[in-house]
């Protein structure tokens, strides 16, 4: 009965577009993948929920970590590799980290080749700044707006190819053929709610993260994890989902600005953290690296200071960069100066900022094969934040922008290779398409009832639950309570009802997002319950420290036959000798 009802409502025209490669997401990874595939002469479609150039990449401030060695000539990919694995507590996919640290310099040069501008050294090379957890000064940057430079460069490069960009278009489902291969996707345009059936044999998932599962976040409305769940629903594996990065420094005041990112560049440029009594507290947490410790450590330090009653009036800690003086601040951190002046009436050249951890990044994501970014679903590739593995238990600042370039390119090439070797055509039955259209229209078209729920309020409730139960300090009982709340929200999803029409209706769009947020939250909590230890971003208060056995495994998630979250402990394969030797040499040096 219900299926027929769906079909009846869905009998309508939809447009069909065919591409060889469909890229979902137009941040750094998606655009870089699109450029690769288009360069190979393939037909490429790029779908983005926002306008072109507005993806979350634009918010990246600090820079791109690449061992170019312009400022510190001793730097090497080997040292970058060591730093990346140390920070990731060895949960990283070591092959991904090896590829990344070797290829990041080429990624930076490629951007420069396409017109991106970086700050210069005195001898006319790309300047590099220090950042937390990096042994050497390693981040290529332009002031504190490196992400803007990167997205604009890739955007303009993409516009110069034959790739077709579908702006403000939302994908709701991936289609597979009878053999289990990717066959396309369904999407609708946000402007007028018209449906598009994309026929494509290869999909590159590059939808970014899911920071919107928390209330205090540096993420935009877009960060709802669509791609992660679309891939999961299609049978892909996810890895390290318990690992959520809380950036140590988000704004705390005024309330509307809570969670907005304060770049790590501030600490890179010598910014000092102090508590309300003026104590430079990082001495207690990491006396060697101080403010330039890794993000997991600094975030916990900031959190602990406030929890233990040494916080500022608005519940943060002080971050002080006044020693640089106005002129240097305007050169190196102009965006931060403007942001605090305009939003908080604080002149950071004269007074300290108030900061507190904010949800920033997801280390976990779709499990991919390092060389090609292929998932276990034939024809499905993933790159950027939505893919997991590179960062392990904690990402180093600057390793994300580089990730987009290195693995965006590889995903585009991987998809192109797959297309060139394939002989089948993309087929999806009309009934499957119509059923999906019916499902998407349900919250808009079903009759009102007294059970109706608002997608916005459900999302707020979920964000509150995640803040309370799956924050940067976790314990088993609280996680279980949080899981109960998330599952209760999941049961209420069918009650979502929205008013208005299909014309640019954010309420209807939000109704799609909540499903992703709920599923991801459930997965994160379930994995966090399994990892009974303290490691990187996963910090269980009910366990004392790291567990040696758990340090050898990743938790891999796959939808099981009952449609439920299946979690498998998977052993991390041993590092090959040429990589393992790097750590022996490192130890020998100490």
């Amino acid at each position: 009965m219900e299926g027929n009802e769906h079909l009846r409502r869905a009998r309508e025209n939809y447009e069909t577009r065919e591409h060889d490669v469909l890229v979902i997401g137009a941040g750094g990874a998606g655009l870089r993948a699109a450029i690769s595939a288009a360069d190979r002469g393939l037909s490429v479609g790029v779908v983005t929920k926002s306008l072109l150039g507005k993806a979350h990449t634009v918010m990246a401030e600090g820079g791109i970590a690449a061992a170019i060695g312009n400022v510190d000539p001793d730097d090497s990919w080997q040292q970058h590799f060591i730093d990346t694995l140390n920070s990731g507590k060895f949960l990283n996919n070591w092959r991904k980290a090896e590829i990344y640290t070797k290829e990041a310099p080429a990624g930076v040069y490629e951007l420069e080749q396409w017109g991106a501008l970086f700050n210069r050294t005195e001898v006319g090379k790309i300047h590099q700044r220090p950042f937390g957890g990096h042994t050497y000064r390693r981040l290529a940057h332009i002031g504190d707006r490196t992400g803007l430079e990167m997205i604009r460069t890739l955007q303009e490069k993409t516009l110069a190819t034959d790739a077709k960009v579908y702006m403000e278009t939302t994908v709701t489902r991936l289609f597979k053929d009878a053999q289990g291969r990717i066959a396309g996707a369904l999407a609708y345009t946000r402007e007028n709610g018209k449906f598009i059936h994309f026929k494509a044999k290869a999909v590159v998932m590059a939808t970014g993260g899911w920071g919107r599962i928390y209330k205090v976040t540096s993420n935009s409305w877009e960060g709802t994890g669509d791609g992660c769940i679309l891939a999961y629903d299609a049978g892909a594996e996810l890895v390290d989902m318990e690992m959520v990065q809380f950036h140590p420094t988000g704004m705390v005041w005024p309330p509307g600005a809570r969670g907005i990112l304060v770049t790590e560049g501030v600490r890179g440029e010598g910014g000092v953290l102090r508590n309300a009594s003026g104590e430079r507290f990082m001495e207690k947490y990491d006396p060697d690296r101080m403010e330039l410790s890794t993000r997991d450590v600094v975030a916990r330090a900031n959190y602990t200071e406030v929890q233990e009653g040494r916080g500022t009036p608005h519940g943060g800690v002080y971050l002080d960069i006044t020693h640089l003086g106005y002129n240097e601040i305007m050169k190196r951190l102009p965006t931060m100066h403007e942001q605090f002046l305009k939003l908080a009436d604080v002149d950071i050249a004269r007074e300290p900022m108030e900061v507190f951890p904010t949800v920033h990044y997801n280390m976990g994501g779709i499990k991919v094969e390092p060389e090609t970014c292929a998932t276990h679903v034939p024809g499905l590739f993933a790159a950027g934040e939505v893919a997991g593995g590179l960062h392990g238990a904690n990402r180093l600042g600057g390793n994300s922008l580089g990730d987009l370039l290195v693995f965006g390119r590889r995903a585009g090439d991987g998809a192109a290779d797959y297309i060139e070797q394939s002989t089948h055509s993309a087929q999806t039955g009309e009934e499957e398409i119509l059923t999906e259209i019916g499902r998407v229209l349900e919250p808009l078209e079903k009759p009102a009832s007294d059970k109706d729920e608002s997608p916005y309020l459900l999302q707020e409730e979920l964000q509150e639950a995640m803040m309370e139960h799956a924050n940067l300090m976790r314990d088993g009982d609280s996680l279980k309570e949080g899981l109960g709340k998330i599952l209760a929200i999941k049961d209420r999803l069918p009650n979502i009802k929205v008013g208005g029409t299909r014309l640019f209706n954010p309420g209807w769009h939000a109704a799609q997002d909540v499903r992703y947020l709920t599923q991801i939250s459930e997965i994160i909590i379930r994995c966090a319950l399994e990892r009974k230890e303290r490691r990187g971003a996963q910090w269980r208060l009910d366990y004392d420290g790291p567990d040696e056995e758990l340090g050898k495994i990743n938790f891999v998630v796959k939808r099981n036959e009952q449609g439920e979250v299946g979690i498998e402990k998977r052993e991390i394969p041993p590092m090959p000798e040429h990589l393992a030797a790097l750590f022996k040499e490192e130890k020998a040096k100490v």
Partner: protein
Amino acid sequence: MTEENHNVTSKAHAPVGEEDLGGTGRTAKLKIFRGDAEGGEEVEYETPLVEGMVVLDAVLRIQAHQANDLAVRWNCKAAHCGSCSAEINGVPRLMCKTRIEEYGDEEIHVGPMRAFPVIKDLVSDVSWNYEVSKGITPFTTSEKAPFTMYEEDVERLYEPKKCIECFMCQDVCHVLRTHHKHAEFAGPRFFVRNQWLEMHPMDEADRLHDLKEDNGIGYCNITKCCTEVCPVGIHITDNSIIPLKERVAAEYYDPAKWLMRKIRGRRNGSRNGSRNGG
């Protein structure tokens, strides 16, 4: 409309609102355009005023609690992305950067950018800008990166590179807004882009012909409206448009150059053939 007056059915789940922190006990009143291409009208909304509240905070709060289908674009909420451009009391502003308290007792009217077709509420169709962007000759060089470029070679480029594509300069430009020259005129945003391309030490393309013919730079009569609304402080008229106008004038209106062109044909014989390449 107030929050007791939901226009979409929703059970109250007592969300913890921002007013728990920094609540002022007062309310913000906004008159927001509700309508589409066919027309519409302003609707007044009232929402709790929180300390430091910006117009975007108020609009999103109204959207979540009173008008679920209120159309608005936003992304970063930190003035980095240029998505939330709107006309506030007739002036284009980023909603995320405009504090409610700035207006004191004045009424606050929020509407979409009007130089582009309105789609719905606060959202207008800015896709034309991306078409213009596609037509500009991209960065072109025969040099191989990494480049050697000194700070003094590139420091002039930092300013135009700050552009966040909010399109407010386009919205306020009377060549577009009043005279609708969208087919012949690229608008301030794209003179800013042309400026850095033309000034990049490694770029080898020549865009002066396009600037004159396709981008219609001659239409600009330097009223500086664009500069006034730029949220990142680019001196669009002085630093982008005037230098480009001077170069176009030197190339096309200098009698000696005119004669040379007559004799030799265009410089380099053609226009680099790189319009869609790069």
